[in-house]
């Protein structure tokens, strides 16, 4: 693995790599739980997303702690921390989306588009994991980051269509409208943050050459 070759096979480094991998795998699981929960209206799955976010928070703290305890060369540490923080921001967005989903009923006119976005969120988080594993192997990331951008653009197109439909959707009150608006914002922001995290990987990859 490229990171191993460059920065020794110390235990601290190994812990960080394992935790980051676990962090991204958990992200993929959370996105899949959100998708399945939305598809079947299964609220237990949505509650599971909330628990996964707390688990992810603990992993993020372990990563940051291990990095500050001296894992990896100093110049890489800020990038690693920023990457972990960005993955955590994705979890925050999923958590917010899950909370909003629990407070509202998904209107049928935007349901299909929202489910499609939830599906792309699973795919884009999977691609983030593929990118990270590729970086560890020292593979080129150009194709992987492009794939992330393609998914992000697909979601952006759907976001425009949802917004168009939302404008003509009647809501009973302020809070119902807010929950719906926050839900859509959260669901569609996940890919934006994954894209940021993907860019972090790219920067790390370039800086290791």
């Amino acid at each position: 693995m490229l990171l191993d070759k460059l920065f020794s096979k110390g235990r601290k480094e190994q812990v960080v790599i394992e935790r980051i991998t676990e962090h991204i795998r958990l992200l993929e699981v959370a996105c899949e739980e959100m998708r399945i929960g939305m598809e079947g209206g299964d609220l237990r799955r949505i509650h599971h997303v909330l628990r996964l976010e707390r688990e992810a928070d603990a992993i993020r703290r372990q990563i940051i702690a291990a990095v500050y305890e001296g894992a990896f060369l100093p110049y890489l540490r800020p990038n690693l921390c920023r990457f972990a923080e960005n993955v955590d921001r994705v979890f925050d967005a999923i958590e917010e989306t899950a909370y909003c989903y629990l407070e509202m009923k998904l209107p049928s006119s935007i349901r299909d588009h929202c489910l499609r976005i939830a599906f792309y969120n699973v795919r884009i988080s999977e691609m983030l994991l593929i990118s990270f594993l590729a970086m560890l192997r020292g593979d080129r990331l150009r194709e992987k980051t492009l794939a992330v951008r393609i998914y992000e653009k697909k979601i952006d197109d759907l976001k425009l269509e949802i917004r168009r439909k939302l404008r003509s959707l009647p809501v009973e009150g302020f809070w119902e409208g807010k929950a719906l608006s926050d839900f859509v914002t959260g669901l569609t922001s996940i890919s934006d943050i994954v894209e940021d995290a993907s860019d972090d990987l790219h920067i790390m990859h370039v800086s290791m050459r």
Partner: protein
Amino acid sequence: MVKLTEFMTTNLKFVDAHSSVYEAIEQMVDYRIRSLAVCISKEKAEYGVITARDIVVKVMSKGIDPAEAKVGDIATTPMLCTDENATMHEAAQIMVDNSVARIFVCGNGGPVGVVSFIDLMSAALIARARGDHATR
């Protein structure tokens, strides 16, 4: 393998065959799309397609008033379709064989999505990036 349904555009817009071409233009401009599915008979599941190219070539360039022309008169029928289980490769082959820029994906109840060259290109790039990776 990346599925056709994963990359098709589901944001399909329909126009009735009896509508004016002007109405079709309005929809295309509003939704920033280049083609519309034309509903000829919903009961018989008969559909066609009208593209921006059809409108320019068959109406505007001939000086015909789009408000007077009917969608059904210039639409291409029947709609070129593939089923939801088709692969990206099969869809691409149909498009190449028929020299068309897009193909509709049809289920039992009619068209459910449309795939264009850019969708096929994106899918090919995704498949390349994914490689043999399967995390689940």
